């Protein structure tokens, strides 16, 4: 590769490589364009920084990895063989420093000794201090491209499709199969990962005529079929679902309509795999040098792209296919120095070629030598004699591996073909068929290694040599799965497409087993790397998680609150005034509730309307407390258990009518509760005459709390509001409302429920009524301080899924008649044994109690529990907390340390009952 090998005519596309302006022809891959510009050195290898060039002409390329594009559009580890040049393409080499030609990593030739197989495992077992030294070195040295720092500016779309026949591969076999299916009236989708249809026809001489490919494509389209170009079938999933990755633009290119790629989910009646074969390299010393190229790739560059990658060429083969490469090179004006055929006897093809070329049998390459950019000579063993050739290109063919990835992802099995020395598709439980050369790979001879194992690479991308496989074997790794993980063989971005068979052959040789007995590793999607943006599709930024807006969102937004996510909802955390910070605002709000009146939005609470003759019976299954004796117009606190007897949610139950109840539970657990209620209804007791409707979003809810709450509400509805734990209907601001006498704050309080679409006037009326009495709105932060002082538990705080009703001090409320979900689980002796965490309160003997801190007997020793929620007494500001403490209820008065070593905070606390405010509930009385 000493310079441009084709005339510059027609090279009209401008691109750059490492900043160097270059020209390409339309239709060139980046690899073809680089070769045409005489560039042999394209990248540095992963571990050893060895110079690497272009080895293949397809998606299997392990060496020529580059970063394409700029800014957030940059795509690292792009195969130069799998990107088609476009005007303004910017490509950069990777893993080199300071420059590609002069790389310090390679100057430390010691790498190959420093990073043998299993290096990472061995290092992790070594002294930790040593790892700190290695880490800097490894992070600097090993690696591929860098992920871009900026956000990807492009869009990625997703689409679902259905077809009778999905054909993967647009070569001669795939095109014929697609036409046959289309002619038979089937809905057909044909996918081709290349930018051109034709497959091997683009590379090999054939007698189908020049228009065959376009004629076949037209027949498919005319019959209503779809052909997707630059589209890779990347995954085969259950029930014949295939995911397709469609490149609408090339990597790094600016999309014309904003969309860079599209992910297809195709459910197919049948899948036909015409995926062809991948040619295998040969193992010999320095087989990774620029200038060593796969035989079919050489043909592709000459015939498809008009690029001659070398002028003096040695060909090494174990099969007949490479003779076609010799002829192609010769026709293009290159000198074929010698054909090294590993087979002991001349095949018919080889005999026929002998007149035109120098053909040697029993001939294998032993080493390649050369400079950074090109090959100088090839050393070989010919009938046990050492021979050397001057050559600038070595074309190798170690046989052909059928692309069986999708067949295997579909759950298929493989047969080993002795003739081809390769695995071919056998049975599959899904509706998939393999055709073409993937089903019938060309014959090839088994190949042994000739040359130094240390530089005979098997996995080029991860720098795994024959010596590494031997070392793994010597260290006792016998299974192919262990070999893979120990050496990292086949674990790079190319997933071992060119390497797995050679490694398997070496392992089988060591095991004295046949290749099929040595075993295979699992084929997993994706077939080729998929960019993360495509998988995310539109589910990024704000669309990553759905935000549910409260019915009163506009009213809150006008007050410019601090928002807080709560479950799927955004709820106001505080309503600061005059530049208050969160803490100041929350304390003012909480004090207003204690001393006057406050209002807050409680719309997001879970709400279920349960009705029917069996409504009470049904509720007594869901709730662990008694419901049946609840009078009409009355309500009660309740909690719910999982089947294992532990508390998973709490709320209130209200009897609206003879056979009609309202059940509320926590915001965060709302969806879980909806599923639980449906489960009990549909699965456990479908015979009940009951309806349980989720009315969470039907109602907006406003809580009005404080010593002036009753007066404010009386004024608004013009009548006496309901007593504590009673309900009433009323009209407020001209809107019908349901009033519940319920309190979470510890003050006399009401929950006002109104149809969600009519919430605004009710909220406005409450604001006005409160303003007249010195009241204010309050957010979640004030609510949290108020409930901690009152000692009310909260789901996901104290109710953490590990506690029984007894642990939470709720055992006295359990329904003695039983029959509720969790009753059996609750009877487990372990739940009654000593040593369990119990809910307690804490008073500080020092400063604020660190939330989430451990409770210890002494500083740093004797863990006893942890702080679940910390606050302060609303009026005095004295720090208090709720906590879970081992056998806590019997430890009142004990002093402990609330320890947070990560924050270096240690505070002495005293254990109290978990009620700091009005424990007798006198403030609820009218």
């Amino acid at each position, binding site marked *: 590769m000493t310079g441009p090998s084709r005339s510059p005519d027609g090279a009209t596309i401008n691109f750059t490589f490492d900043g160097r302006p270059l020209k390409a022809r339309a239709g060139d891959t980046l690899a073809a364009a680089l070769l045409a510009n005489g560039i042999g050195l394209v990248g540095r290898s992963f571990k050893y920084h060895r110079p690497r060039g272009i080895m293949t002409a397809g998606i299997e390329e392990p060496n020529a990895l580059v970063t394409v594009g700029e800014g957030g559009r940059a795509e690292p580890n792009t195969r130069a063989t799998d990107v088609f040049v476009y005007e303004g393409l910017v490509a950069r080499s990777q893993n080199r420093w300071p420059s590609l030609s002069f790389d310090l990593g390679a100057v430390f030739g010691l790498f190959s000794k420093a990073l043998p197989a299993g290096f990472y495992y061995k290092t992790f077992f070594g002294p930790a201090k040593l790892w700190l030294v290695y880490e800097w070195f490894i992070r600097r040295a090993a690696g591929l491209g860098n992920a871009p720092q900026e956000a990807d500016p492009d869009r990625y779309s997703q689409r*679902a499709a259905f077809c009778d026949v999905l054909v993967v591969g647009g070569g001669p076999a795939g095109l014929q199969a697609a036409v046959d299916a289309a002619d038979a009236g089937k809905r057909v989708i044909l996918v081709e990962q290349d930018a051109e249809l034709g497959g091997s026809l683009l590379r090999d001489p054939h007698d189908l005529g020049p228009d065959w490919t376009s004629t076949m494509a037209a027949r498919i389209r005319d019959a209503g079929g779809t052909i997707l170009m630059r589209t890779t079938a990347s995954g085969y999933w*259950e029930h014949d679902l295939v995911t397709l990755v469609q490149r609408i633009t090339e990597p790094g290119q600016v999309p014309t309509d904003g969309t860079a790629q599209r992910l297809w989910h195709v459910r197919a009646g049948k899948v036909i795999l015409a995926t062809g074969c991948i040619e295998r390299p040969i193992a010999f010393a320095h087989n990774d040098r620029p200038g060593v190229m796969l035989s079919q790739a050489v043909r592709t560059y000459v015939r498809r792209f008009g690029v001659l990658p070398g002028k003096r060429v040695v060909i090494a083969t174990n099969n007949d296919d490479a003779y076609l490469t010799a002829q192609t090179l010769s026709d293009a004006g290159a000198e074929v120095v010698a054909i090294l055929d590993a087979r002991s006897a001349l095949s018919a093809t080889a005999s026929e070629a002998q007149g035109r070329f120098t053909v040697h049998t029993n001939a294998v390459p032993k080493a390649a030598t050369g400079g950074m950019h090109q090959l100088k000579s090839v050393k070989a063993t010919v009938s046990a004699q050492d021979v050397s050739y001057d050559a600038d290109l070595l074309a190798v063919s170690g046989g052909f591996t059928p692309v069986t990835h999708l067949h295997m992802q579909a759950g298929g099995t493989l047969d080993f073909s002795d003739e081809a020395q390769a695995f071919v598709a056998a049975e599959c439980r899904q509706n998939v068929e393999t055709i073409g050369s993937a089903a019938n790979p060309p014959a090839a001879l088994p190949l042994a290694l000739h040359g130094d194992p240390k530089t005979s690479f098997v996995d080029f991308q991860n720098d795994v040599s024959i010596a590494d496989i031997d070392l793994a074997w010597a260290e006792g790794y016998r299974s192919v799965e262990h070999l893979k993980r120990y050496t990292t063989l086949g674990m790079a971005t190319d997933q071992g497409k060119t390497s797995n068979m050679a490694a398997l052959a070496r392992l089988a040789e060591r095991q004295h087993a046949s290749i099929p007995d040595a075993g295979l590793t699992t084929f997993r999607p994706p077939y080729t790397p998929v960019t993360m943006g495509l998988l995310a599709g539109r589910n990024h930024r704000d669309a990553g998680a759905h935000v549910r807006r409260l019915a009163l969102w506009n009213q809150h937004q006008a007050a410019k609150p601090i928002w807080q996510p709560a479950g799927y909802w955004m709820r106001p955390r505080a309503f600061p005034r005059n530049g208050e910070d969160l803490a100041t605002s929350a304390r003012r709000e909480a004090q207003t509730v204690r001393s006057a009146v406050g209002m807050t939005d409680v719309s997001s609470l879970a709400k279920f309307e349960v009705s029917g003759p069996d409504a009470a019976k049904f509720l007594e299954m869901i709730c662990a407390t008694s419901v049946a004796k609840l009078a009409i117009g009355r309500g009660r606190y309740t909690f719910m258990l999982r089947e294992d007897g532990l508390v998973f949610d709490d709320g209130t139950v209200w009897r609206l009518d003879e056979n009609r109840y309202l059940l509320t539970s926590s915001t965060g657990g709302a969806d879980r509760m909806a*599923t639980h209620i449906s489960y009990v209804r*549909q699965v456990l007791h479908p015979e009940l005459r009951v309806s349980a409707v989720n009315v969470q979003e039907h109602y907006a809810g406003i809580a009005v709390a404080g010593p002036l709450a009753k007066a404010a509400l009386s004024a608004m509805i013009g009548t006496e509001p309901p007593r504590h734990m009673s309900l009433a209907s009323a009209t407020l601001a001209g809107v019908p409302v349901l009033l519940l006498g319920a309190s979470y704050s510890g003050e006399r309080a009401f929950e006002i429920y109104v149809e969600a679409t009519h919430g605004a006037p009710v909220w406005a009326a409450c604001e006005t009524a409160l303003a007249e009495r010195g009241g204010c709105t309050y957010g979640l932060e004030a609510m949290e301080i108020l409930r901690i002082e009152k000692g009310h538990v909260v789901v996901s705080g104290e109710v953490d899924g590990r506690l029984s009703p007894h642990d939470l001090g709720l055992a006295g409320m359990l329904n003695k008649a039983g029959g509720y979900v969790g009753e059996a*689980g609750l009877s487990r002796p372990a739940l009654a044994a000593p040593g369990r965490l119990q809910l307690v309160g804490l008073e500080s003997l020092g400063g604020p109690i660190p939330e989430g801190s451990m409770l210890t007997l002494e500083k740093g020793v004797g863990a006893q529990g942890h702080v679940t929620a910390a606050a302060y007494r609303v009026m005095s500001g004295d720090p208090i907390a709720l906590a879970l403490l081992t056998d806590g209820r019997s430890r009142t008065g004990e002093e402990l340390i609330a320890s947070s070593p990560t924050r270096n905070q240690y505070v002495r606390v005293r254990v109290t009952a978990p009620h700091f405010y009005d424990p007798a509930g006198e403030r609820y009385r009218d």
Partner: protein
Amino acid sequence: MMLIPCPHCGPRAQAEFVYERTLDSVVALDAGADDAMNSLFTRTNPRGVDEELWRHTYGCRAWMAVRRHRVTHEIESVQPVGPEALP
């Protein structure tokens, strides 16, 4: 992604469904403590066909009993569950 034949909606993509639990982990409300704990914590987990409860959560929201091979994902049968499925 599997194709699950909902008894009410026909064949639909797995993404519309939620796997809930195996049928043998359903605990009757009157089960004794030992039976309940066995159902919850010591199940068979066969490498073969199992009976499972699925829910068409992003479709008709109905529950169903699915007989599915846990290795091949072959679905032998799907039966409706709930009041409508009562004899």
